[in-house]
């Protein structure tokens, strides 16, 4: 295709990508480099139903004059990225110099909100992704070998976790593991400990969120793999069978290599999705024991005062995180692509 034609062919998608992806990211990036102006405060007397008090209030006119002079705010460079609520460079380097063992340093790091969120996000991604792939493939292979008559209903039931809205699915499990719920009460009975609470214990909360994540995402992997299985050439499978390959060997040496591009696709999607884990933490009210980069952004933007700079900085770091996670898979695909061309 001539370059000119290619350009006009691509132009609409390029335009949409610039408008809806590149520009917003650019604006978030800009936002993350600025913080609010100094607020001019004055002390006034405030009165209400409970009497009068001397209190500090913001001098709106003076502050507004500052804002109008410089609408973006104060330039702060990467100051927000490195402050205590994000990468905390000052605190981390001090801890590096003062702590004596790795575990002491680690527990110091886990006391900083950003690293705590990062630790959960990475663990969630690292554990949920492989389980989803393996489980999805297993379900797909299982369903594929079922007799035709039960296939439909089985597929429908296997897809249910994905059909249920994430927040609702999360709430269902939340009430089941409640101390008065069926799972929570059963656990208390089994371990004979009336103070045992899944929601109160950090390891159990993490485990519950991982299980929820796997339960919720496995159907997606299953659907993709099941569709892929329909295209595996039967001649090759039959040839392998004639060569004496058993069922496991046929899956290992024929089906899986054939499905590899699909596996890579599901890995990519899952890495991105899991890195942005959000709904289950909200649904389980698990913020005390688990926070992710997404809940971190959410907290910044809610409540009486929205911290836009802080939220923007965390968003940018989430994008960087996704890029780092995806780079090995993308590099590999790129190399395969080049090899094929050569």
């Amino acid at each position, binding site marked *: 295709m001539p370059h000119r034609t290619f350009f006009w062919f691509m132009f609409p998608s390029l335009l949409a990508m610039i408008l809806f992806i590149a520009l917003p990211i650019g604006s978030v990036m800009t936002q993350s480099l600025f913080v609010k102006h100094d607020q001019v405060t004055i002390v006034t007397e405030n009165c209400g139903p409970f009497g009068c008090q001397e209190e500090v209030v913001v001098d709106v006119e003076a502050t507004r004059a500052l804002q109008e002079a410089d609408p973006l705010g104060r330039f702060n460079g990467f100051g927000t990225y490195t402050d205590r609520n994000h990468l905390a460079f000052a605190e981390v380097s001090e801890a590096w110099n003062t702590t004596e063992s790795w575990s002491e340093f680690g527990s110091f790091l886990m*006391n900083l909100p950003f690293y705590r969120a990062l630790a959960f996000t990475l663990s969630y991604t690292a554990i949920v992704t492989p389980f989803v792939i393996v489980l999805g493939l297993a379900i797909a292979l299982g369903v594929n070998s079922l007799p035709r008559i039960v296939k439909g209903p089985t597929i429908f039931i296997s897809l249910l976790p994905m059909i249920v809205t994430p927040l609702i699915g999360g709430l269902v499990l939340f009430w089941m593991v409640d101390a008065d719920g069926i799972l929570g009460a059963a656990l208390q009975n089994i371990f004979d400990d009336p103070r045992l609470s899944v929601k109160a214990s950090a390891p159990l909360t993490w485990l519950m969120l991982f299980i929820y994540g796997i339960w919720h995402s496995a159907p997606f992997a299953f659907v993709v793999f099941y569709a892929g299985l329909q295209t595996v050439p039967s001649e090759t499978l039959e040839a392998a069978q004639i060569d004496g390959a058993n069922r496991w060997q046929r899956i290992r040496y024929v089906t899986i290599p054939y499905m590899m591009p699909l596996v890579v696709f599901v890995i990519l999607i899952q890495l991105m999705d899991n890195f942005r884990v959000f709904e289950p933490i909200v649904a389980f009210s698990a913020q005390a024991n688990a926070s992710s980069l997404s809940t971190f952004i959410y907290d910044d933007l809610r409540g009486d005062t929205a911290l836009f700079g802080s939220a923007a900085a965390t968003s940018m770091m989430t994008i960087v995180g996704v890029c780092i996670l995806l780079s090995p898979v993308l590099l590999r695909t790129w190399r395969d692509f080049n090899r094929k061309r050569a």
Partner: protein
Amino acid sequence: MSFMKTIAAGTMATLLATASYADCGIESGSIRILSNDFGALHAMVEKARECETDSVTIEHNATTEHRDLQVAALTANPAEYTSAVVANSSIVPLMNEGLIRPLDDLVAKYGQDLQPQQLITIDGQVMAIAFMANAQHLYYRSDVLEQVGLDVPTTYEEVVAAAQAIRDAGIMENPFAMNTMTGWNLGEEFVNMYLGHGGQFFEPGTAQVSINNEQGVAALNMLKQLVDLSDPDFLTFDSNATAAEWESGNLALATMWGSRGGPILDDEGSTEEIVSSTVLTGAPTVGGGDTPASTLWWDGFTISANISDEDAEATFAALVHGLSPEMVAENNDLAVWLLDGFEPGPAAAGVAATAQSGARPYPMLPFMGLLHTALGNELSDFLQGNESAEQALSDVEAAYTAAAREQGFL
């Protein structure tokens, strides 16, 4: 939704046309109200709807997410809502951005029936009209306390002792609860307990936080003793959860909002045995202090700055009509009204007692919200026994300081 609203408004207008127009003194205007979602607010707005005519329309968005909407909605010009119903904490962001207008001229014109204590004046200007009070205070079950032979606790030390006695007697495993959900609720419990110990949040006149002190540690230790007597899921308990626990009979002592009193004492959602023995009383003191460990709250309405004077006037007049004595008479037990004609019943006893014994109002400082958020996020580690009180408080100070720097207060 807006279609349904139109129909509702139309029906209402017809009904009123056949009955009689309430005389609100409004000729025309569009009234749009943003508020939290609880019974007392609905009662007020329903009454205000009597002012609707062909040329006066009222829309009401009642949502528990109102705090997250209000700044953006009122920044628009013209503003999405002509009035935001706020409390002492949520008025602050609107003040910080200059999004609400002074009401002195409207009060002079329409506010003859308002009580002087309803006027929220800031720097000499009326910025909001308060209409109800609220506070967290003690709820107890008189029958359970009788069983263990204890008097009504008046200090948190006695609350701990009573709850321990109830547990030891095998009556309830986790007899105590308060709103300790991570986030805003947990922050509020610390604020109450810290003020009960006589603490100051900031160095006077500055935005410099100072809570890592004796009172802060004492407040945290008291919270720890209390949550040890609560259900182990306490970090997920918000106001709805504690009220449900109370109504299902799992609790004998609880610190809950006064505004929950009406729904708990009504004849729905619980058994006769629980309701008849539920008593609301003032918030306990703590650590030998003499002010209750609680904060006083008011709810009131404001008028947006970015709207026409006509709409502002219509909104003010309609809402003042919504606060008329007939509304109070019809909904006496829904809230602790600060209005003419209110007769305090058993559901109001707790808030009244808390206010009378000198509890302090929640601080209306521009940077208090940032500290509240930091408290809500950083204290759960201590309550779960993962770190020391001093460490938790220094984490709060660090988180607050970083946020306040970004927000331009430091």
